[in-house]
């Protein structure tokens, strides 16, 4: 650490004003990223609380801790909050918002005011949904399956549906902003195949956000309309078809999984090459596999309906297409592994999360193939095997990438360092806690324990207690980063512009960057991830 790097820069975006107005009316993509960071962290805490309630209830087999109704509301709250208000916006709205203009050498996103609008829409949607959850609750599961949600449920379906409908437009506007920004705002010399893979991943994500989200918006609106104005689309008494709802719902909600995982894959690509000190292996394959996942992701939705009532031939087609998605996912995993090969691997916290991601995503992905197989799926549908599988993708994949990315770019966002030892300890806690929570659930599901019941046969208790113990460890694993990262904002050592010696335009600016990111728009002359030549302005000793 050289002496001139002991302090933060004189001018930076955080100093542009401390009053509430300077935050609530900001159009700076970096500040909006932080607004999102605070909001989704809050929602994550609520979602985790619901998860805690669920795991607490499942400590005992007889369901004596809470009523079945309360349990239904707890797991629904967990799902709705985590999916719509944490996982979907997580990486794109925080890291994506913060980094995309910096990575492509732009002063801001193409539509800064729409960017701020998207945050307000998110807050309104979240507030309405939370209102629905607190006053009366919601017991439909996050999937809102009809006809239960339209004809039978007596919980706050309309309000929650409207909240989710509104929040959807926040996601659409973020995607729209990214697509236009990536197309039109790149710095001179930054051709498509010089873009960081993080940007490619967000481009693919944005396509799904723009083309998928409106479908769930209209679908969830139809559920609300059916309850309020008695539309008959999903009412079997009038010839309506509840399964049509499932098709429309999963047309978005399956691609939504890729909204969660693709940005995370983008983060992994950035970190793995930096901490291997080696150019990423198979750049164009990783870039194109993001687009392939986005495209194929739209063609597999009906694998959620194998036992709902569908012709055998459609089921076979959807099964085959689902297997096909494994190909681009495997391409990425192989390329990351090949990047490690003969690299000079450094075990800093972001890199530990990369290893967590690769291992857990591998398990999540491969168990997905079990579920895509028609025969096996009949046995496993609606069991804890499915719960474990999608948590390995959504938590083991998406959240590992999110935490890894947060640690990796934290010095850029705040200009300060977190305490590395704490980072390592908590990443270990997260890894152990996560596996202890969800691996037993694979076994439970295989043994036949169904999901969404508040009581279960006694022989499943040991595995359930293990799972709850794991969830407790996982909870601490989340609390630690919250504490030491918050602490570092105020007390952390100044990090310098490029503490990791990383490549990419975002590391050529000061930390934290100025409001306009670059004093002069940079001209890009080199290929991405050129780790063979020394980094520009490396601050690391």
């Amino acid at each position, binding site marked *: 650490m050289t002496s001139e790097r002991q302090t933060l820069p004189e001018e930076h975006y955080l100093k542009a004003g401390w009053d509430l107005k300077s935050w609530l009316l900001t159009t700076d993509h970096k500040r909006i990223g932080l607004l999102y960071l605070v909001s989704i962290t809050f929602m994550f805490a609520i979602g985790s609380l619901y998860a805690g309630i669920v795991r607490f209830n499942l400590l005992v087999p007889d369901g004596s801790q809470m009523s079945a109704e309360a349990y239904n509301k707890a797991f629904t709250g967990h799902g709705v909050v985590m999916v719509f208000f944490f996982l979907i916006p997580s990486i794109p709205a925080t890291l994506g918002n913060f980094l995309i203009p910096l990575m492509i050498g732009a002063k801001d996103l193409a539509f800064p005011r729409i960017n701020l609008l998207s945050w307000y829409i998110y807050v309104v949607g979240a507030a309405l949904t939370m209102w629905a959850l607190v006053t009366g609750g919601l017991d439909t599961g996050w999937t809102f399956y009809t006809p239960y949600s339209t004809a039978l449920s007596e919980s706050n379906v309309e309000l929650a549906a409207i909240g989710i409908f509104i929040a959807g437009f926040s996601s659409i506007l973020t995607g729209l902003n990214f697509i236009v920004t990536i197309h039109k705002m790149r710095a001179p010399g930054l051709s498509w195949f010089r873009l960081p893979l993080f940007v490619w991943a967000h481009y693919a994500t944005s396509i799904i956000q723009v*083309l998928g989200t*409106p479908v769930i918006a209209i679908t969830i609106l139809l559920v609300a309309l059916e309850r309020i104005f008695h539309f008959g689309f999903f009412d079997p008494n009038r010839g309506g078809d509840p399964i049509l709802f499932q098709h429309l719902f999963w047309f978005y909600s399956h691609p939504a999984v890729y909204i969660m995982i693709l940005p995370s894959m983008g983060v992994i690509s950035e970190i793995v090459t930096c901490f291997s000190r080696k150019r990423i292996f198979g750049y164009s394959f990783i870039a194109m596999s993001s687009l392939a996942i986005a495209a194929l992701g739209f063609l597999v939705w009906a694998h959620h309906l194998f036992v709902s009532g569908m012709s055998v031939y459609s089921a076979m087609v959807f099964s085959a297409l689902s297997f096909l998605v494994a190909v681009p996912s495997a391409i990425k995993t192989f390329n990351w592994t090949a990047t490690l090969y003969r690299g000079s691997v450094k075990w800093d916290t972001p890199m530990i999360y990369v290893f967590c991601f690769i291992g857990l995503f591998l398990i999540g992905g491969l168990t997905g193939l079990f579920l895509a197989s028609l025969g096996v799926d009949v046995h496993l549908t609606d069991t804890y095997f499915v719960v474990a599988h999608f948590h390995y993708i959504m938590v083991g994949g998406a959240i590992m990438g999110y935490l890894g990315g947060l640690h990796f770019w934290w010095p850029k966002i705040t200009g300060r360092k977190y305490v590395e030892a704490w980072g390592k300890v908590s990443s270990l806690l997260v890894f152990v806690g996560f596996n202890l929570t969800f691996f037993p659930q694979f076994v439970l599901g295989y043994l036949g324990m169904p999901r969404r019941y508040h009581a279960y046969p006694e022989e499943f208790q040991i595995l359930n207690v293990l799972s709850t113990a794991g969830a407790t460890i996982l909870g601490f694993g989340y609390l630690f980063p919250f504490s030491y990262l918050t602490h570092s904002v105020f007390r952390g050592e100044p990090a310098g512009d490029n503490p990791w010696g990383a490549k990419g335009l975002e590391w050529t600016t000061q930390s934290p960057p100025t409001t306009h990111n670059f004093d002069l728009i940079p001209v890009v002359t080199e290929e991405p991830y050129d780790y063979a030549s020394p980094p520009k302005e490396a601050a690391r000793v």
Partner: protein
Amino acid sequence: MSELAAHGGAEHHPALQHHFTSLEQQRAASSLGMWVFIAQEVLFFGGLFATYTVYRTQYPDAFSAGSHHLSWKIGFFNTLVLIGSSLTMAMGVYSAATGKKNRVVGFILATILLGSVFLGVKYFEYGDKIRPCFGDGSHAGCLVPGERFDASALHLAGPAAGHAQIFFSLYFGMTGLHALHMIIGIPILLLIAYWSWRGRYSPEYHTPVELVGLYWHFVDIVWIFLFPLLYLIGSH
């Protein structure tokens, strides 16, 4: 003009935002943004069109009877009105591109007028179907889905009466969503007309006029699909 100086150069157009390097870049970005927005709109309406396709395939007779009950003459009149409004909108954009300020204002006001005529007609069309549902009487002729729905005017009974409710759910859902888009569009057009009158646009910079034009044409095109699907399928 002090704003200009702050941006450091007389060559900067007042409409140029700080994060763009040129008006051309700004225009291209805005235009792409609107096209992406329209793509999302297509998928938004797409959910309803998919629902329509499924149920029309399943219940062709009830759909035919429901469609027959709608007045194709009123629908046709409204189609002409909307196509007319698209024409005036296109003329408005052309006038903006050629810098004829007064004509821009005139054409946009004409577009608003035609859009309002369309919505007025829609108001009476809806009224005929909704009015019988209120009051204590027999609710004869009530075409709002729900308990008071009366299929006797459609000469349907049994399950087919339920299927007709699905048709009318689609009718209200699709035309309602379409009308909502026009109701959102009209205040935006008013604003653009006002700014145009204030002289904000020029041949170099009239992107907002172009964008609202794109939006308006999209809403019209949705109607071009709705009209035959809802009004004409009973006529053959």
